[in-house]
């Protein structure tokens, strides 16, 4: 048994960590947090040069042609660095959807641009409140055009193209939902940035008015493809969450060692030690669930739906837990804008919602476990 990443993959993680430590220090994250830029363009360019944007994209489309395990280790580092770039929407959602369901021409058009950093992509799924469900999709597709409104769309205001879930029939059946590919710069789509709890990763409202769209994948299979994309993204985002959890835990630990109160480091008080130990426990459970998700993703195993839901839940809980208690360990200073703690707290709570909230994934996990049990 080797339930671990290979030495080469670990080396890749180290390279990514080194690169991000240099190119994406908290100061760079703050540029975006403070609204001085919609995302870190320099970093985006650097990520393309490092080959990180096209890791899973086949070489024929300009990528590195590596596997999902390699992407998982990069994702972890993106989360650890709190990188203010549209990585998750472009790489986990748009690229994965293209790889799963795109035609040769669609792949040819967009994948090389993703790998080179020229195109930002996203998934336009949600229409206001609610979790992923065919019922919530009202945006209409007819005659090759889309009409309707999507929000929130992650990185929607800076995206060049979007995979859009649209209604092609009037029932609540999965088969009435189809996916479309829309060039957001070709007219017919208006993007409005929306204020959100984590400004380092934008959210937008996209209004489609007779926007030209081409089908992505077979008609009637939209929801099934979408479910697969969400499962894959769930594992990848979970690695970001694990990276963030570890960083929040480290920040708390370092502060507890450094900060003196009542004549001793606060890390010598059991109340603080136990809080940090519990953070470690959550982060470890999440990491282990994520490794299983990574295995399932990389082998396209039948266990992927269950593994993805478990990784998603566990990592969401861990990041929320670690980021909130990191602030608690820091005390008053943790609640200042100046300290970095809130950047992780914001990211933790934003990523907790971005692919559907915790309660949605809890529901999914039990469904999937029951299916496996019945099988």
């Amino acid at each position, binding site marked *: *048994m080797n*339930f671990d990443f290979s030495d080469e993959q670990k080396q890749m993680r180290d390279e990514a960590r080194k690169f991000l430590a240099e190119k994406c220090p908290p100061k760079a994250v703050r540029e975006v947090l403070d609204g001085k830029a919609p995302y870190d363009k320099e970093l985006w360019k650097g990520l393309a040069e490092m080959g990180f944007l096209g890791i899973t994209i086949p070489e024929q489309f300009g990528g590195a042609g590596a596997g999902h*395990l390699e992407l998982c280790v990069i994702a972890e580092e993106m989360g650890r660095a709190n990188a203010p770039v549209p990585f998750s929407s472009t790489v986990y959602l748009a690229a994965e959807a293209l790889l799963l369901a795109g035609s040769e021409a669609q792949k040819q058009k967009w994948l090389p641009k993703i790998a080179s950093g020229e195109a930002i992509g996203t998934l336009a799924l949600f229409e206001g409140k609610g979790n992923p469900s065919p019922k919530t999709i009202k945006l209409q597709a007819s005659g090759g055009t889309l009409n309707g409104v999507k929000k929130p769309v992650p990185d929607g205001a800076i995206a060049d193209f979007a995979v859009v879930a649209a209604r092609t029939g009037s029932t609540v059946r999965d088969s009435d939902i189809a996916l479309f590919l829309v060039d957001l710069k070709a007219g017919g789509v208006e993007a409005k940035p929306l204020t959100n709890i984590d400004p380092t990763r934008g959210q937008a409202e996209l209004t489609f008015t007779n926007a030209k769209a081409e089908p992505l994948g077979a008609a009637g299979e939209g929801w099934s493809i979408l479910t697969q994309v969400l499962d894959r993204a769930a594992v990848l985002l979970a690695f970001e969450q694990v990276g963030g959890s570890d960083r929040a*835990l480290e920040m708390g630990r370092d502060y507890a060692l450094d900060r003196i109160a009542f004549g*001793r480091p606060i*890390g010598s008080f059991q109340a603080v*030690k136990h809080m940090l130990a519990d953070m*470690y426990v959550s982060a470890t459970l999440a990491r282990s669930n994520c*490794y*299983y998700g990574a295995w399932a993703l990389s082998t396209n195993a039948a266990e992927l739906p269950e593994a993805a839901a478990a990784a998603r839940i566990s990592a969401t809980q861990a990041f929320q837990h670690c980021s909130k208690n990191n602030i608690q360990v820091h005390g008053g200073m943790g609640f200042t804008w100046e300290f970095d703690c809130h950047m992780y707290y914001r990211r933790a709570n934003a990523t907790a919602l971005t692919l559907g909230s915790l309660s949605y994934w809890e529901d999914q996990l039990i469904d999937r476990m029951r299916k496996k049990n019945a099988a």
Partner: protein
Amino acid sequence: MNFDDTPQEAAFRAEARAWISANAPKQYEEELRKSSLGRTVLKGANILEVAKAWQKKKADAGWACLHWPKEYGGRGASPIERVIWQQEEGPFGKLSGMFIIGHGMCGPTMMAYAGEEQKRKYLPPLASGEKIWCQLFSEPAGGSDVAGLRTRAEKKGDDWIINGQKIWTSGAHYSDYGILLTRTDPTVPKHKGLTMFFLDMKSPGVEVRPIKQASGQSDFNEVYFTDVKIPDSQRLGAVNDGWNVSLTTLMNERMSIGAGVATGFPELFEFCNSLMLEDGPAIEDRNVRSRLANYAVKASGLRYTSMRAISALSKGERPGPENSIGKLVAGSMVQEVAMYALDLQGAAGVLSGADDAEVAGKFQAMLLRAPGTRVEGGTDEIMRNIIAERVLGLPGDIRVDKDVPFNQIPTKGRT
């Protein structure tokens, strides 16, 4: 990343599987498989005898205490082979319960500190289950603070005379031998005046009394020592170096990974799959699903954490204190799972008789046993300290009694 055996591991697994299949006491397989969390009971058979017979059979064929050297009754197997054996032994592994302390803690301590002749005399029958050992550390005045123990050992000629009391000794009532931590010098700070021995539990002056636990059962004992004589040749380690000897014992406790900890989740999931609530199947209730999902990811998280540790073993790395999380997470989880399973039964959840209660009262029994799992083998709080100090590198507690002679530490009048 894969779950495959190396060719060498696969060969070992095939050999183990074939032997188990040909030799295991299959007539108890079903009962053993079903038994979970707490005592294993076999209908119409004395579990002690069944367990001893299985252990002896394993020993005779070279499958006992796999990681021990051959000359002491083991197989000289690698840590990963030991894990593979545990996986293959499956439900029959539950028969090893009464040997765990002897094999996991007493044996390694003897191996590290006993004389060669003693090792050859005592270890093989320990490995084969013919002799059972217990560990006599905890005392009424020394639980989490083991070094606060008070049982005295005083030198008299070539012997030591033992007086005092131990508590929470698992299996003392059926043990043949024990390792015993005593105080030999109360005038020095507490860690510096301890000495370790091993003794025959049938020695005159040893009295074993079962403890009636809060759960109503008796899994543990009090052991009283009145002028018990132990020859100096049965001392393990130097006089007053017992603390270091005990660390060997406790470190080995943490090496026993791979067996998996009980979380109660499989039982709860199965229960919810069949339970009907007023509005329909429990498993379709939103709240139930949410709770189940939360337990599910803890259980799977522990499972895969253990697999990561096994992978480390397979690569020849030593598992670290991070494996403390298993007991910490599972202990309180079992308790919560039990409370939730009762909650789902409404007022009837209070009934615990096998005929009236759901699943023959399994969850009620789990509820009543659970507080103990959070205390035994290191309390939740001790486990958190271990993680905080040894994994995260946080400072140890300020110990006000560290440099004080033991007999000057305040006791609030207790002796």
